[in-house]
């Protein structure tokens, strides 16, 4: 299955993937509207910045998926290999945050729901928006 993989050597820590992800999943038609009026939509991909190294972390859609197994509301499930969250069911208990070995699950701006990468399968992009936004091939959407 195609997933988003990291080429650590090329990440510049520019954060374009984060802003694009946040806008793509905000429900707004474009990036400007997504951030207008002081809104701060949350990205499902996170950049870790270091001295000479940067890289992006997002859901690996892993086979173990401890997040799905621990979800107390049954909000997390696996659809065609992609791990998705039914945000209506999510109660913000953070059991998935406790379980994810990559720290890939993000708490939203209200603190009452979680957000996670679903490979843009449920927004208008269809294919991961973060990959399209990366200027340097630091993240790619392919099979490995």
């Amino acid at each position: 299955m195609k997933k988003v993989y990291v080429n650590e050597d090329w990440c510049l820590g520019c954060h374009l993937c984060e802003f694009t992800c946040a806008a793509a999943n905000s429900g707004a038609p474009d990036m400007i509207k997504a951030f207008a009026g002081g809104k701060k939509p949350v990205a499902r991909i996170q950049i870790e910045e270091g001295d000479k190294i940067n890289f992006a972390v997002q859901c690996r859609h892993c086979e173990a998926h401890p997040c799905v197994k621990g979800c107390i509301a049954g909000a997390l499930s696996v659809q065609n290999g992609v791990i998705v969250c039914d945000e209506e069911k999510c109660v913000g208990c953070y059991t998935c945050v406790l379980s994810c070995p990559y720290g890939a699950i993000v708490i939203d701006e209200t603190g009452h729901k979680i957000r996670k990468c679903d490979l843009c399968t449920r927004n208008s992009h269809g294919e991961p928006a973060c990959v399209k936004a990366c200027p340097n091939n630091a993240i790619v959407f392919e099979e490995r």
Partner: protein
Amino acid sequence: MNYVIIGNSAAAVGTIEGIRQIDKTGKITVISDEKYHTYSRPLISYWLMGKVTDKNIYYRSPDFYEKNGVETLLDARVTKIETAAKDVVLSDGKTVPYDKLMVATGSKPFVPPMNGMDKIASCHTFMSYDSVKAIKAEVKPGMKVLIIGAGLIGLKAAEALNEYKADITVVDMADRILPSILDIRAGSIMKKHIESKGTKFILGTSVDEFSEHSAKLKNGATVDFDMVIIAVGVRPNTELVSEAGGKVERGIICDLTQKTTLDDVYAAGDCTVSHDASSDTDRILALLPNAYMQGEVAGRNMAGAETKYENAIPMNAIGFFGLHIITAGSYDGEEYVEENGNNYKKLVFKDGLLKGFILMGDVKRAGIYTSMIKERIDLSNVDMDMLKDRPQMMMFSKARREEKLGGIKR
């Protein structure tokens, strides 16, 4: 193949989904003493608060049983397991035969005998959908509520009732709150936070005597109430297995494949004893993720696979009145502590490994610490300053990151 599951909560659902990974056609029967479609027990306080709807309290979709070929016998109580005949007996006398049996009976609230309890007008436990429905029917704004027990369940009840502007007092024999997951300092921070929202605590004492609307405490104080909620603890439902001759200590004893000492009988969830990999001890790990995963392993093994449930550790993610806690592992070892307002961080190290942690307030990405405990990651390859700063993949070696994030195995 005829699979029978006693229970209808997380462990049972794990068992169903585990069986169906291997055996798509075998018959599965679920017997539950509650009358509901599988619902999430931890969500009952959210339901009471109005944060979860009637529809969303259910743990799986409405067509879950149909999609998985499961027959349900709801509102039916199992009284006996007959291992020779390989069937279970219901309270109405019917028998249900099995080839493989799963005991996922969970636990029941422990109600200690206290003086004058029979006089109390309104007394509830806080364990089931029915119990919160009963509470909801009675609750009124400004109502006085006395909660016995300052543990996970008691404080969740307090949080829920606070939404109704109830006047809440929590009493506990211990001198601190949440002793099962927090240390003294973290417990004190959380106590102050909860007190700032209006709930009162009386710790280090217990009830001497109840009357209809008030309780006299052993320290001399008196607490008036309209409603009492008992939340002092739970007892695992092990009688069916012990009476059938299976090995039971504090909970049902299973091996790593979740098999009990009875042939073809498995157990999973809050009724079982697990092996805690972080402290290398055996104890009951009454946690939903644990129950589900034990059930899944058991289900697969019942269907013919050979899976083991290893690396179980205590782990909790819970929030009270907007302040969140994430904890895992054991706290025996060398400690590193950081405190900043309501943010508290404690990391516990032993034998060159991360053994446990407590995070309060800022709990982002805690799962990275959890996996280090479970996988027993060797800290000599980890940047300790980064580890102490916050959970981050940066603390690991480039090779590990290439494998985990880049899909490259060398």
